[in-house]
């Protein structure tokens, strides 16, 4: 016999994450009250910090850009039944690709010629970093969770070496490359809008945000409307059925991980080419891990991922505002709130699923016991 009741699609995709989010905020409010601040004030400060001004919203969307890229990366792998925890490393190495292109071409080529090369480099470097764990999983059965985690550390060590020993700008102390010439800068969106006559205050938000949205549209078409996406989902759901259908699961896994790594590499465009204009240490800043939460909360669907990414962008941006304004709420407190959201939306989603499903069953069939 089937389990009692199933949530309708809209409730599964829309209502459940909202209920989870509210639960996380309620717990956060309790903690904030406990340390002696007014939760309502904190919430308002946070919302204002995230969306209260054009600059704030720009920052929120700039963070969201990173999360969209990494969230999509996690989701694509997940649809193939793979848990890619290595987006952090893949984004890091993807950014290296972007940086190398920019360093090499910025004094020779115009922007419109550098951009496509940088995009390809971001994708290829990210994909290459995902390839080894993917190959080990597909051909050798080494668990992808373990290998991708380890590759995060390798990426980190590699980048430290390169920045400290090789790429560092001669004659300085901090491990960074020289700043790119402006031909290798992604134009900021406020500047672009300004050229169209719209006056928007400056923020790090740049063209990469539009690329992230385009990537989301691409993932949506790819996963649900192409043959390859169909095969990828088949492998994720039932590898035996995939073999029966003439699909090679190892090949599909490789493709899925390459695509995942390439998407994660997109983060490099936003950070390296869009904001920092140089290579520096630890520019992904944990976005690879937040991507896991974003994908979970967004139900591995591009639309959900965009919404979840904006939410997490708001938590980042609003959170830093909060720690700035309320002395008793420090940076770590903000991390606690983010952690609660991840916990409620990811790990504990079934906590609310069962009661919600029961509620729906009763509402649909009034008068019947469950």
């Amino acid at each position, binding site marked *: *016999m*089937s*389990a*009692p*009741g199933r949530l309708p699609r809209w409730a599964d995709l829309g209502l459940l994450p909202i209920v989870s989010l509210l639960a996380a905020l309620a717990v956060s409010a309790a903690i904030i009250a406990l340390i002696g601040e007014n939760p309502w004030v904190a919430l308002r400060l946070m919302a204002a910090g995230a969306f209260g001004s054009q600059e704030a919203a720009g920052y929120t969307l700039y963070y969201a850009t990173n999360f969209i890229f990494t969230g999509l990366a996690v989701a694509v792998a997940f649809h193939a039944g793979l848990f890619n925890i290595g987006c952090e490393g893949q984004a890091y190495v993807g950014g290296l690709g972007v940086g190398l292109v920019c360093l090499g071409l910025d004094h020779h080529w115009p922007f419109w010629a550098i951009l496509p090369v940088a995009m390809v480099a971001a994708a290829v470097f990210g994909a290459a970093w995902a390839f080894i764990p993917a190959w080990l999983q597909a051909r050798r059965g080494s668990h992808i969770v373990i290998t991708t985690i380890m590759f995060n550390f390798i990426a980190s060590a590699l980048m430290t070496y390169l920045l400290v020993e090789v790429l560092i700008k001669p004659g300085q102390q901090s491990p960074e490359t020289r700043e790119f010439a402006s031909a290798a800068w992604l134009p900021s969106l406020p500047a672009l809008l300004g050229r169209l006559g719209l006056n928007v205050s400056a923020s790090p938000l740049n063209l990469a945000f539009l690329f992230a949205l385009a990537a989301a549209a691409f993932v949506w*078409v790819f996963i649900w*409307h*192409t*043959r*390859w996406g*169909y*095969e990828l*989902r*088949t492998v994720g*759901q*039932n590898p*035996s*059925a995939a*073999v*029966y*259908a*003439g*699909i*090679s699961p190892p090949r599909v896994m490789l493709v899925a991980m390459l695509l995942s790594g390439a998407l994660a590499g997109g983060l490099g465009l936003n950070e390296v080419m869009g904001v920092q204009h140089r290579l520096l240490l630890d520019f992904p800043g944990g976005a690879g891990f937040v991507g896991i939460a974003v994908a979970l909360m967004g139900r591995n669907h591009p639309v959900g991922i965009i919404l979840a990414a904006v939410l997490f962008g708001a938590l980042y941006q609003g959170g830093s505002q909060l720690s700035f304004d309320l002395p008793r709420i420090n940076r770590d407190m903000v991390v606690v709130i983010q952690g609660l959201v991840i916990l409620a939306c990811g790990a504990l989603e079934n906590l609310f699923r069962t009661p919600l499903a029961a509620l729906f*069953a009763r509402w*649909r*069939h009034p008068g*019947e*016991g*469950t």
Partner: protein
Amino acid sequence: MDPPAEPASPANDAPPALELRGIDKRFGPVHANRAVSFTIARGTVHGIVGENGAGKSTLMNIVYGFHRADAGEVWVHGRRVDIHRPHDAIAAGIGMVHQHFMLVDNFTVLENVVLGVEGGRRLADGLARARAELERLARDYGLAVPLDAVVEHLPVGLQQRVEILKALYRRAEILILDEPTAVLTPQETGQLFRMLARLREQGKTVILVTHKLREIMAVTDRVTVLRQGAVVHETATRETSERALAEKMVGRAVSLQVERTAARPGGVLLAVRDLEVRDRFGVTRVKQASFELRAGEILGIAGVAGNGQSELLEALAGILTPSRGEIVFQGAALMRGGFGPRARRRLGLAHVPEDRLRVGTVTAFSAQANAILGYQDQPAYSRCGLLRGSAILAGCERKMRDYDVRPPDPGLRLSAFSGGNQQKLVLAREIDCDPQVLLVGQPTRGVDIGAVEFIHRRLVGLRDGGKALLLVSVELDEILGLADRILVMFNGEIVGEVASADATEGKLGLMMAGVKEEPA
């Protein structure tokens, strides 16, 4: 636990072993049991039959405490019992042997039997007591099992015996067996039935839940028929027949036998020579198989499950790569490895796999997504890699109409369909592209009787249309009813071929046990 006492001798005026009064159970919108009431006399074997979804399992799970009834009472030996969990059922003297055994594979028989009733802190004491008790049970009931053997090394028939011993060791007076013969050879089935007769002689009560009417007729004293959750018929077994029971189960007259004319075989479509197949552990599962399959015939492969039929089927479908031998399809050799399932489908070699849920479908996908599985790269369904949504939808609607798949909703998740309707969809998918050869494995496993009739008709119709069918089934009735020629496999070898006109169950049964047919 102390060694159980000897069972009291049954008295004729004793209260019934088990009485159900008005058991009612709903799962959300599904009314699984509707006011089910019946009694089972002590010292009898009582059959419960019904189609998939008729509520048999739910009812037994209520009796054993896995589910709680919304209403109704359970009376055991004249006393009302409240069963909240399996522990209560065991305390009331009810034991259950599940279809999928609940054994710890890497424990010995003895360890499995005492699991949960070890008795005391020192395991050794409990084990010693259990050993003595089990030896007595083995003597009394003819249930000999090597107590120190590790369970995973035992054949299924013996594993089942361990399950029965487990129940008896817990002093079960009432034993529920859920589809016990699904995994057994005909010989093991015979042994099981003799064991059940022995248990009955000793005053135990046996409840046999099955969909195999032949077994009901062979071994039970009384039978209860469930349909859509309600008791629709109850009778002494000797006063009924398979046909009558089938009609009660389905609610209308059904034909258990497909009418068909003699085959008119045409040219050879598929030739197999000296085929050898190894599984992924390197064990040779098919040895030196050679046969031909002609247009317009159904070739049946009979055999007890696990004798290489599955691997043969998978090798022909391109899923397993043969280690030796050749497969020639319409005159062209399908080279080793070169032709995967996709290429074979394109050539006209379709495959309905044995395991519908694990291999043949993706249950989390919608019906329409399942209706293109394996055909997703065909121009009808995708162009330049983009799936053609409306063509897929229309194709699924057409298949559902042609094969009477209910409900005819292409957007519904496959797991929401009944086994019979899932199978009809798989069949529709595989037949739709007009294959020359159709490989069919267990076409009616887990399929309700009404759909069985439909599926059998379709298969015979395909044969009459000049296609060749290779039918692998562990149900002898199905092979006898459909196949024009029958090959019997034992231990990976084809031990003989019988024309359907000469085939009898006895003859096939001997061959299935490995007795080679001597040329007359």
